């Protein structure tokens, strides 16, 4: 009876008294008409009256979008921006569906105190009273905040300044710890500043591209678009244990053993030294510490390590010869590198290869970290968490004085010690030292490694505030107080993308109920906390942007040359740095700029450093009890992190598997007696979950893969952190698989 039931809700049309109804109301619904604004045809029921431009709020690619507005200025549709230099009129499915999550039924529409709706005044009073009480009793270090890479630069700057300078907190970190801390630390140590050197044009200019632990085909499809536009018939080398979409598209795939990348690059360095394939001029002029590195890699003769790497001699030689022969080699890495037990050293092993071959500062080159979240780069520079705002150092008195001056705040308000890292904050909660937590736009109860620890820690908190678009996230459900936030599209501000490009996003949709932009929430908290006067100048995102320009003065990330948002928009986004020049004003900066073109780095001596350390085995190797290595990663291009937003779009949901599936090698499955699409139990020492088997030889024997978007997956992962960057190692732990019929 399903059709009969469906018909109850639908309109039955009366027929015309002709044999054929070529046209009519149903046909008319799908008519397309010229949309003006250079758009081409658009659906007749969604013709825009005006257009606004914004930068996408999902990933760090930072695509330009054109938002189609109705007469009230409300967004009704969107298309990708043809003229924006990042994406050339393209967007991935998440970008196309940016507006859908805004109208989800589970939006937080009022502050919720212990599950009951309260007004903003009550919520803010409770917020201040509770945190104040904890800090009065247990000191400034007893309260912490966890920020995000998903809000605007001006907002995260406000949050960091408010929490640390205004409210007096010492500890605050961001979810960027989970994705980019490694790259930031690696660059800082090697280049003297957290400075990804590239511009997206480099994808098109290289003759050799090396992707390490990166699957841009689905994780950054619009960057892959640029690779496809490379007209130099490039050698594309993918280093990944799995035959990913990107590995399929590569000319060489090195399916190394998980976490063998550090050794691989030391072997490559050894080979390059042995084959005299070095750029001695560059090494001498622009680097320091090469002799020690050369000495160190003497032990890494490739032939000794082939078994450990999981490669044949032929594969390694072909790879090494490609690097030796390449004229413009670019190295690109993401989470496969950043999330490891020796992540920072691995990233630096890649940087070392770029340095010793002189592949940096020229078109098509670079040791390039591809960032994750839309504003991870903003967070790295301006969130006032690990670094003092603007890429400064909390322990440096000169820096504190400079920032205090630029922001017009008393210097003694600036803590002189750095914050604890994310995992140390969680540890602090477990140890009872941290009793109050304020979490903004992130979902730790889903995403934190060995999730159970976070969930249990959260229960120990005296006061836990979650500020989010949705009251339904796994984390919001644990909170005492939920502050309803406006999302992307409901506020304005800037993002900084992977290639250091600053772009502006606008308010194009009305926030539901009492939800407020994070920026407004911070203004209110400043007022209620009693530190309003300190933030008198922080009246709008653009006003804060002007302050951040001042803060950046003299730093490698200086942006004093950017006048205002309008200049950013007219220029198609602006990459940092852009230093103010007195003589020329309002000139459009070049659209694609890379760092280190003059060979000068940001270290004290201007030279890049070779940093290295001996590899060690991952802490939890497979054994008889847990014989498989569990790899995790992105499942599809239509899913974003914990799915709090992408899960709200019916069309995106349709484009990924409806159940959690575990990739398992068919021959391993045979041994386990597991058939394709059967329920299996996946257990680690931390937890046990069920998933559906998907048999595919794209994973190697002895390895299994789970997409990270399902809340169950981080019940299995192991709390291991890179000692340098404190970034969690999501991509290696031991599990057992059993048929669960």
């Amino acid at each position: 009876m399903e059709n009969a039931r469906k018909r109850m809700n639908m309109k039955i049309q009366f027929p015309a008294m002709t044999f054929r109804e070529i046209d009519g109301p149903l046909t008319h619904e799908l008519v397309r008409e010229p949309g003006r604004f250079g758009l081409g045809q658009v659906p007749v029921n969604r013709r825009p009256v005006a257009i606004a431009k914004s930068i996408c709020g999902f990933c760090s690619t930072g695509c330009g979008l054109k938002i189609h507005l109705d007469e009230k200025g409300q967004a009704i549709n969107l298309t990708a921006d043809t003229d924006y230099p990042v994406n050339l009129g393209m967007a991935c499915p998440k970008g196309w569906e940016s507006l859908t999550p805004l109208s989800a039924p589970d939006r937080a529409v009022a502050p919720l105190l212990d599950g009951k709706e309260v007004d903003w005044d009550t919520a803010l009073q409770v917020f201040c009273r509770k945190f104040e009480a904890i800090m009065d009793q247990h000191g400034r270090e007893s309260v912490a905040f966890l920020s995000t890479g998903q809000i605007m630069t001006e907002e995260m700057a406000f949050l960091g300044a408010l929490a640390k300078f205004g409210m007096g907190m010492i500890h605050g970190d961001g979810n960027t710890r989970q994705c980019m801390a490694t790259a930031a630390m690696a660059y800082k140590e090697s280049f003297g500043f957290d400075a990804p050197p590239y511009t997206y044009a480099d994808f098109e200019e290289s003759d050799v591209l090396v992707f390490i632990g990166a699957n841009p085909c689905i994780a950054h499809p619009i960057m892959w678009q640029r690779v496809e536009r490379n007209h130099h018939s490039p050698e594309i080398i993918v280093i990944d244990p799995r035959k990913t979409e990107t590995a399929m598209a590569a000319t060489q795939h090195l399916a190394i053993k998980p976490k063998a990348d550090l050794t691989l690059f030391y072997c490559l360095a050894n080979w390059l030294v042995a084959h005299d394939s070095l750029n001695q001029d560059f090494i001498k002029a622009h680097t320091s510490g090469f002799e020690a590195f050369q000495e160190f890699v003497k032990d890494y003769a490739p032939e000794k390590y082939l078994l450990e790497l999981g490669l044949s001699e032929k594969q390694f030689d072909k790879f090494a010869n490609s690097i030796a022969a390449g004229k413009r080699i670019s190295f690109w890495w993401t989470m496969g590198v950043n999330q490891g037990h020796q992540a920072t050293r691995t990233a630096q092993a890649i940087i070392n290869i770029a340095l010793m071959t002189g592949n940096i500062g020229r078109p098509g080159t670079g040791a390039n970290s591809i960032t994750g979240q839309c504003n991870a780069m903003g967070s790295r520079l301006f969130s006032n968490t690990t670094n003092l705002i603007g890429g400064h150092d909390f322990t440096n008195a000169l820096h504190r004085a400079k920032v205090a001056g630029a922001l017009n705040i008393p210097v003694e308000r600036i803590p002189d010690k750095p914050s604890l890292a994310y995992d140390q904050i969680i540890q602090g909660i477990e140890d009872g030292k941290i009793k109050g937590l304020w979490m903004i736009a992130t979902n730790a109860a889903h995403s934190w490694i060995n999730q159970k620890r976070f969930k249990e820690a959260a229960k120990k908190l005296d006061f836990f505030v979650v500020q989010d678009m949705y009251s339904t996230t796994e984390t919001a459900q644990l909170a005492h107080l939920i502050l309803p936030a406006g999302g992307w599209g409901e506020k304005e501000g800037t993002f900084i993308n992977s290639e250091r490009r600053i772009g502006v996003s606008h308010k194009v949709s009305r926030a539901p109920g009492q939800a407020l932009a994070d920026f407004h929430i911070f203004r209110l908290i400043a007022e209620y906390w009693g530190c309003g006067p300190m933030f008198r100048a922080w009246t709008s995102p653009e006003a804060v942007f002007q302050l951040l320009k001042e803060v950046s003065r003299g730093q490698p990330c200086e942006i004093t040359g950017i006048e205002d948002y309008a200049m950013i928009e007219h220029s198609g986004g602006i990459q940092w740095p852009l230093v103010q020049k007195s003589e020329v004003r309002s000139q459009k900066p070049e659209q694609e700029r890379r760092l280190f073109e003059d060979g000068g780095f940001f270290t004290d001596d201007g030279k890049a450093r070779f940093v290295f350390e001996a590899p060690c085995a991952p802490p939890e190797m497979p054994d008889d009890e847990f014989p498989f290595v569990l790899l995790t990663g992105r499942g599809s291009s239509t899913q974003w992190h914990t799915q709090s937003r992408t899960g709200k779009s019916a069309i995106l949901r349709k484009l990924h598997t409806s159940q959690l599936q575990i990739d398992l090698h068919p021959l391993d499955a045979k041994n386990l007696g597991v058939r394709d699409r059967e329920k299996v139990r996946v257990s680690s020492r931390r937890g046990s979950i069920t998933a559906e088997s998907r048999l595919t030889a794209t994973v190697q024997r002895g390895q299994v893969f789970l997409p990270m978007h399902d809340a169950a997956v981080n019940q299995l992962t192991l709390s291991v952190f890179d000692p340098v960057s404190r970034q969690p190692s999501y991509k290696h732990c031991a599990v057992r698989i059993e048929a669960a019929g």
Partner: protein
Amino acid sequence: MAALEHRESLIDSLLAEQSKMGTAAACFSEWHDSDQAEPLQSRYYRNLIPFKKPERGEQYAFEVNLDQCTGCKACVTACHSLNGLDDNESWRDVGLLLGDDYTPYQQTITSACHHCEDPACANGCPVLAYEKDADTGIVRHLDDQCIGCSYCILKCPYDVPKYNNKRGIVRKCDMCQSRLSAGEAPACVQACPTSAIAIRIVEFEPRTNPSRPLLPGLIASDYTRPTTRYISSNPVPDTADAADAAKPRTEQAHTPLVVMLVLTQFATGAILFAQNSVMRWTGFMAALLGIGASVLHLGQPLKAWRCFLGWRKSWLSREIMAFGAFAPAAFGFALNLIPLWLAGVVGLTSVFCSVMVYVDTRRPFWAARWTAPRFFGTTLLTGVAFAACFDASFATVAAIHGMVKLGWESLYLSSDDPRDHRSHRLLLGPLRELHFARFITGLLGISLMLSSPIAGFICLMTGEFLERIIFFRAAAAWKMPGNA
């Protein structure tokens, strides 16, 4: 106190500011106000659409370069947004092919309507709601002509037409016809970041290997002659299979059709073995009820009067016309105005049309050798069993007939044609209980028939209804590779 008031008024002013709209557009709309002759995006898709129109013997076709299709799925969302479709609606879909046990291989497959040379959807439509455009070859669905019978969904071996619940009709890809005629690229072509989808002009010509499927695991292309070309520098391995092959989708039950089929077949049987006027009138009533039930299946029943239009090609159109004749024939027979042979022939003709409706879809589970015995079997079995209620001498025949029918149905599971594997999986997997219940009811009916024909008849009828539900639910459709 003043501070407190200030705080509260700040809340109010920020809430007011939050709800103020229209600030974003004011700044930028003037940049774009000019009506451009050519859409901005055309600079990136100009080479992906033909410069000229198709000539005689040619048509437009999608060409997908698999080397460049790397799994981003932007085409699906762009189709959804640029065509103003419903929340979960898109006319393009993306699935996945995986390699065999020893081949690390994966390939995403994007597909929309293949705008076939010989479109099965159009051939099956009883009301001619499809039109193959003479100039472009685009297979267009006429939304206002559609009666929502869903037969095109059963006919299309690529799972293209989709039923739209809200509207009670089917909708599908029209290759963005209006865009192409304005020199613009279809939504999916415009939106592919790697230019993997193009529109090309192809010739109608006898293929060198017409029976080869578009991709491994699909139906042989000679059924509809799809025009989409999948090109690749590395051919798709023959052993590759859809990622969802091991978990076929359980199909819809189509309850009104179950009722219609069983009752019209019972009606024919009751007439053929009519012993008395009770059987005659029961036959008529069953025919009426069955045909009535079929109306519940339609999304736009008021438009169904055009159902004869497709009679030249559509077995559904023919079935409806046969039913149209059967109801008065059964009535005439009940009134003794029409002889048995005439009512019987009309009844059997409509059963034959019913068989052909399903055989013509080419679903392996609905092949003639399985469907004809089911439908004619139901006719005879229910007819004889009903007669046994009045004359016990029919009971043995009914029991024997029931055994034969059950035996034949169970033989399906022993078919080793790989095309039958998906239906096997459904019968032994998600439909296991239903399948079991069908055989138990059948066997119970047979044994009861010998002692208590009325109880046996009720049981056998129930068994036939279960059999027909399984008939629909286990009929694994041909489709493009899926995701999950």
